[in-house]
């Protein structure tokens, strides 16, 4: 069966983070990602979904199966209409090392995925897009 083109998961509560990452895991497995990459994708979804919940109280995660030049991939898009990020540059600094996991964890998500992009405006919201391609 061909995988679905796009899955949307609303993020309004705690439990939605788990739903989003389980759907991500299922889609990644179906697309043929390695077990480690499946975990990377599920973890990235978890981090992004938690950000949506913590900073915007609600939003959504979109998961899309990609096919480009005979290579398969998975795109995660986290969208919220929250306060937005004032300084994207600073948010992309690694805050993990000493402060023990504070901050948005975005640099970590970027390391897990192959492509990464943030669009954010104060007062309007944030969209984070992250894509991973199947390894040959």
């Amino acid at each position, binding site marked *: *069966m*061909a995988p679905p083109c796009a899955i949307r998961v609303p993020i309004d509560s705690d439990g939605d983070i788990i739903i989003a990452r389980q759907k991500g895991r299922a889609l990644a497995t179906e697309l043929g990602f390695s077990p*480690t990459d499946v975990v990377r994708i599920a973890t990235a979804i978890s981090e992004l979904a938690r950000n949506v919940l913590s900073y915007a109280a609600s939003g959504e995660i979109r998961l899309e199966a990609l096919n480009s030049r*005979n290579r398969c991939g998975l795109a995660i898009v986290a969208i919220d209409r929250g306060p937005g990020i004032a300084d994207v540059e600073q948010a992309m600094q690694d805050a993990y090392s000493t402060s023990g996991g504070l901050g948005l964890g975005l640099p970590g998500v970027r390391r897990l995925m192959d492509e990464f992009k943030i669009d954010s405006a104060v007062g309007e919201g944030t969209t984070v897009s992250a894509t991973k391609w199947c390894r*040959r």
Partner: protein
Amino acid sequence: MQQTHRDLLPIDAAVELRRELVAHLRENRTGLREEWVLRITGAQLLRAMTNEEIFAEATSVYDNYVEALETDTLEALQAYARSLSERIIPRGVETDEVVGIVLLLRDVLARSLFGKYQNNPSKLNRVLDAYEPAANRIANTVAVGFVQERERVISQQQEAIRELSTPVLQVRERLLILPIIGVVDPHRARQLTEQLLRGIRTNRARVVVIDITGVAAMDAAVANHLVQTVEASRLLGADVIVTGLSPEIAQTLVNIGVDLGKMKTMGDLQGGIEVAELSLGYKVVPATQAEAAV
């Protein structure tokens, strides 16, 4: 249903035609299949297979082909093409043979349609209009399916070869050695890490000695992989000792922010093994002493 242009068939008429030609292909299944098999052996295709095997596969291919024409969908055909490829690739069947036999089938069936409708040229044209694009899609699907399966098999074999050339050795109970030799690129580094972690789990290792004496140089990316390997191993309960660290590689590690003071290192593999054995509680005594004690 009015027909306005010869090339544009109203949907109903096209479906009806397809049904008619599929019925014809099913009625004449035995004869057409036999003709096809004769053409296959005549063209010296599928040399690696016996006549019985060719006949058996030909039957499935024929039926799947006709069904794909009937349903005008390709999923079932794709699935069939994959399983067919899985069967015949180990037998040594080549791409040109697979493409060849599918095209031969297309021709045999086309000729049969010529024969049936030769007295009705305009109907023949309509039938071919319905048949050709579908037949070409089918040929394409089967060929692509075969090639993809071949690529998958080749890549699997390459992976297996790579695995064989990077052994994780169990020297003592709970003690693993991973000697790395040669050039390490990010792909190999990733593979080494996964093999090591699997090895730690299988062997229930508590200490791992990673020896990089044989590694000439390491760029920042690979050095990062090494550090991640050490940390991931710790999460699985295994302590890591890195041996054979050259001054250059030590510098690379420092440059990427590694605190060498926190990493356990020894000059050479032997030294690393001794430290590992001590930490595991093995006492290493010189041979003469051990003999005397017996």
